[in-house]
């Protein structure tokens, strides 16, 4: 249950908090940049938060720098919107098209690929639409639509919702009608609703796995981690809010956070994090060869200026 992480983290954090209390007051962190005592506001998607990964990453970062991370869990769309308003310093999301838009508009800088997991299509064990064994996500979606079986959509402009809409589009289906339910809620809630209604939904693997204990839903179409279609890939990126647009943002601390989370240590923590005995996220920042594409929004060219 979600509770064990609290227990663990509180044990971990208890001593650290006491140490910190002294540390921050005098700014004793000699080696680090001058950020001790400051607060970083991170907006992120519910999946990183609800799986417990964020606590796992943030506690050591806070100790290392003597800072506080205020993590606000929103959908990807809302998280980017909060960052656009300059109300957060760094944003960690999973919808490349929305991230590119954010970068192109000049709100974000220094985008880094962070990690990935994948999406899975889940549904009731009985599988009334009969999509189990389907190799293609678009085919599975089309089958659900044809059968008119309940499909529960996030409907909240989140990263998962963006992906879902992309799959419907690729499947050539305009979702709508009685069988298609937009909830406007987080992934966890949508899984609950799908579970209650015996419906299908698209879920990130992490949230599904961390919640599997409370649900009867099963994976019917796998994502690329288990050999499923590449369309179901779910890459996460992290960006600092551009200090040239919002001079109130804590850019130094944002970059320290991005540096930490893409460092070997941060990546190791991502790799080692499990829920119900399964790895939820796969690190992607460490790479043999430089991947410049991660900094550059797709389709970025001189023509796009102005």
């Amino acid at each position: 249950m979600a509770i064990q992480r609290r227990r663990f983290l509180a044990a971990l954090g208890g001593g650290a908090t006491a140490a910190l209390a002294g540390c921050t007051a005098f700014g004793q962190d000699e080696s680090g940049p001058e950020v001790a005592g400051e607060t970083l506001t991170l907006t992120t998607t519910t999946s990183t938060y609800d799986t417990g990964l964020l606590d796992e990453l943030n506690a050591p970062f806070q100790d290392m720098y003597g800072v506080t991370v205020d993590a606000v869990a929103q959908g990807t769309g809302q998280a980017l919107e909060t960052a656009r308003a300059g109300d957060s310093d760094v944003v960690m999301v999973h919808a490349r098209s929305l991230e590119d838009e954010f970068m192109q508009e000049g709100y974000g800088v220094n985008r880094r690929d962070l990690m990935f997991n994948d999406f899975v299509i889940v549904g009731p064990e009985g599988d009334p639409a009969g999509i189990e064994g389907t190799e293609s996500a678009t085919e599975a979606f089309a089958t659900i639509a044809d059968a008119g079986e309940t499909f529960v959509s996030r409907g909240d402009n989140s990263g998962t919702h963006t992906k879902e809409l992309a799959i419907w589009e690729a499947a050539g289906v305009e979702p709508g009608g009685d069988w298609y339910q937009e909830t406007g809620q987080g992934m966890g809630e949508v899984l609950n609703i799908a579970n209650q209604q015996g419906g299908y939904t698209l879920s990130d693997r992490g949230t599904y796995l961390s919640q599997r204990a409370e649900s009867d839903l099963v994976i019917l179409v796998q994502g690329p981690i288990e050999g499923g279609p590449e369309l179901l890939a779910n890459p996460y990126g992290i960006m600092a809010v551009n200090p040239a647009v919002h001079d109130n943002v804590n850019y130094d601390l944002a970059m320290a956070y991005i540096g930490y989370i893409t460092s070997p240590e941060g990546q190791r923590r991502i790799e080692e994090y499990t829920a119900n005995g399964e790895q939820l996220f796969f690190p992607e920042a460490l790479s043999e060869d430089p991947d410049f594409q991660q900094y550059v929004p797709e389709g970025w060219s001189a023509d796009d200026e102005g």
Partner: protein
Amino acid sequence: MLAGAPDAVLVFGEFPFESQYVTSIIQVSLYVSLAAVALSTLVSIPTALLVGFTDFPGKRLVTAVINTGMGFPSVVVGLLVLFAVSNQGPLGEFGLVFTKEAMIMSQIVLATPPITGISLAAVTGVDDSVRDAARALGGTRLDVALVVVKEARYGIATAILAGFGRAISEVGSVLIVGGNIAGADGVSKTRTLTTAIQLEARQGSYDTAMVLGALLLVLVLTVNAVVVRLGDGGTLR
């Protein structure tokens, strides 16, 4: 594990949180709601006395506005406060977004109308003879007001409780302006009991949510009991 223990014992034996997490959430809930109710009361009671005992053009309109405010949708309040405190908003320079102060602001907007409205009903319900007597005995306007407040104390206590009830049970607006933030060390910054319940329900941890819900109920009942007791204190004992 308390194998074989009755269910009730099991629930408490396996209390599913670090106490620091829960106490900090309760602290934030109480701090935000009580601060908001206290500030609202400071505005509400003088307003209720003023509106109740003076005649002025537009009095009915003011009363109507107060009564309408009681039903003002809380998420709209949250949204408006967010716009105000966001870095782009008029109060942006103070950096209030995702803080307890922003939550208090939205709670004040929510709690003031019920406290004012119910207090208004209470003070206008005080018999005119009480005021006349106080005035006849040479009381200043303040003395008269105090006598009226004393007479109406049960109604005013009800008003404050209604305001507190609205504030502590609020989810939507505090989620929008507060961000439901708890540190990785398990200490709440802007997480309240209600937003924690929302979070646990989102994660499918309904039993954990239920425990928090029970705590919220106990908290509300305790505060109500204390206020009722204080209301009685003057005369009944």
